[in-house]
């Protein structure tokens, strides 16, 4: 038997070593890619962080300087409004799924939520355009919020459901036995007991939409002015990155790097909050 016969014990061991090292190499290249991207983002972004970026609107084409204040405000309006719309609906659907497990209808609802998660965000933008922008005849921040709210629903629903089914039924039965209605029991016992998981679901939702542009292209559209009115079109940070990234101006690229870094740091912060919540506040009985 030659040493390289793969059926010999030695050959099989070598094959095993090669396989294991391939797994290591490929896994570490995934990690390396993360660091390369983050390194580049910090390198380009840190240089362009200055006070003007946060305090000024865009300058006309050709002038250097300016900032993304209008987009920061616009992003806040759109995301906060989307969260306000999505939270009550998402939590309600989550409660329904947790309370009606095993029913045919809730299986279908759960499947629909899973599929909804995979629908391309641009398609949701088109649908909201048809529903709201076309009939009202103008782009608006709130139409963008509705599109984003739909994208937030799946994580909120799933997290609410998964948290509520972990709460022991004895807790619920104790409340019902004391004469509390189903509504009161849900509001005063179930939701407070599961607040950690539900809250982290909401943050996952915000993290999912904070960097989205595709559904906003034909809803919130964009606006170089500083606007506080959700009925008007607004700029958002990711939209500004998109516009500036495809422009030929170096100064616009600089601002886009600054915007990218702010956005990524914000989403990483949200992810960190989620991790802390998941480790500390996880429902434990």
């Amino acid at each position, binding site marked *: 038997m030659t040493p390289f016969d793969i059926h010999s014990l030695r050959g099989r061991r070598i094959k095993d070593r090669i396989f294991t090292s391939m797994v290591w190499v490929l896994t570490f290249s995934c990690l390396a890619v993360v660091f390369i991207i983050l390194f580049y983002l910090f390198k380009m972004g840190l240089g362009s962080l200055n006070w003007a970026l946060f305090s000024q609107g865009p300058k006309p084409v050709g002038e250097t300087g300016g900032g993304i204040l209008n987009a920061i405000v616009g992003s806040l309006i759109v995301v906060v409004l989307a969260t306000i719309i999505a939270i009550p609906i998402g939590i309600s*659907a989550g409660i329904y799924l947790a309370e009606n497990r095993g029913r045919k209808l809730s299986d279908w609802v759960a499947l629909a939520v899973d599929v909804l998660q995979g629908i391309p965000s641009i*398609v949701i933008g088109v649908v909201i355009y048809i529903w709201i922008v076309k009939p009202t005849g103008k782009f608006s921040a709130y139409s963008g919020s509705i599109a984003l709210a739909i994208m937030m629903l799946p994580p909120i629903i799933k997290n609410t459901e998964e948290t509520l089914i972990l709460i022991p039924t004895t807790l619920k039965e104790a409340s019902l036995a004391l004469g509390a209605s189903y*509504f009161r029991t849900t509001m005063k016992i179930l939701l407070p007991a599961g607040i950690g998981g539900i809250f982290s679901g909401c943050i996952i939702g915000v993290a999912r939409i904070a*960097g989205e542009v*595709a559904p906003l292209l034909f809803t919130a559209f964009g606006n170089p002015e500083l606007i506080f009115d959700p009925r008007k079109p607004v700029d958002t940070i990711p939209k500004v990155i*998109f516009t500036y990234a495809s422009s030929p101006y170096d100064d616009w690229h600089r601002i886009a*790097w600054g915007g990218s870094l702010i956005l990524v740091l914000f989403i990483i912060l949200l992810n960190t909050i989620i991790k802390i919540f998941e480790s500390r506040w996880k429902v434990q009985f």
Partner: protein
Amino acid sequence: MKSRWRVLENKIFVKWLSIIAIVTMILLLIFFITLLVSSWPAIKANGFGILWRKTWDPVHNNYGMLPFLVGTLITSFLALLISAPFSIAAALFLGEYYPKGAIPNIFRNVIELLAAIPSVVYGFWGLYTLAPLVSKLELKMNLPAPGVGIFTASIVLSIMLIPYSVSLIRQVISMTPVSLKEAAYALGSTRAEVITKVIIPSNISGISAGFLLSLGRALGETMAITILIGNSPEMPHNIFSPSYTMASVIANEFTEAVGDVYLSTLIEVGLLLFVVTTIINLIGRIIIKKVSY
């Protein structure tokens, strides 16, 4: 009086929950009907020929989306192909080799960071770092060297798919029954043999479902690709050619679409994208659900 109100509020609450659940369930159907109604003028005007006509000429109301279909499919499959070895390796690393412990946990969080980066930032990063490299490569191969095109878009897309497919495949792999693995070890198998002959074959449907769901995500990915694909409505000649995808044609042309048929045709492209991704997600989710029990 108070107790009557409580009975009423309880009734309203239960009704509200059911209504929300039903609305969530039929939301996809409402989407489908909305898109179908709005694209009906285009479907009537373009006929089925839109699927295999090669020219996209909105000025003369001549629409063919074959270049977008081809561009979308090549970009997505190439991205899936590039990311597959990395995804499987990382999923094995985290699901089989080191399922527990502090350092694997850090690794998992680092890979999940890839999901935290927005699509548009990926596009911007790719345009700055990857496109010049690809451009150099193209010069060496005596091709036109714009740097942007299917290849650049696929590489960036493959990075974006990694966190998604890793988490799906890791879940599937970690559910392999221990007895199955131990039986193989008891017969004298090495770890590589256990993985290639037991773990992967016994989970093949779950792993395929993971890739299928990643494919669904790749097909609908918009912003990064819009920045990197070169936006050219021509049939691609090779994998370096600038091209166009269904999602990016909507992103670029929707707000500029003049004329009802043009807008309606773009909605038709959206309808096709919606139907395809819905079917892919349905199949993928049903397989994953079956595998999980």
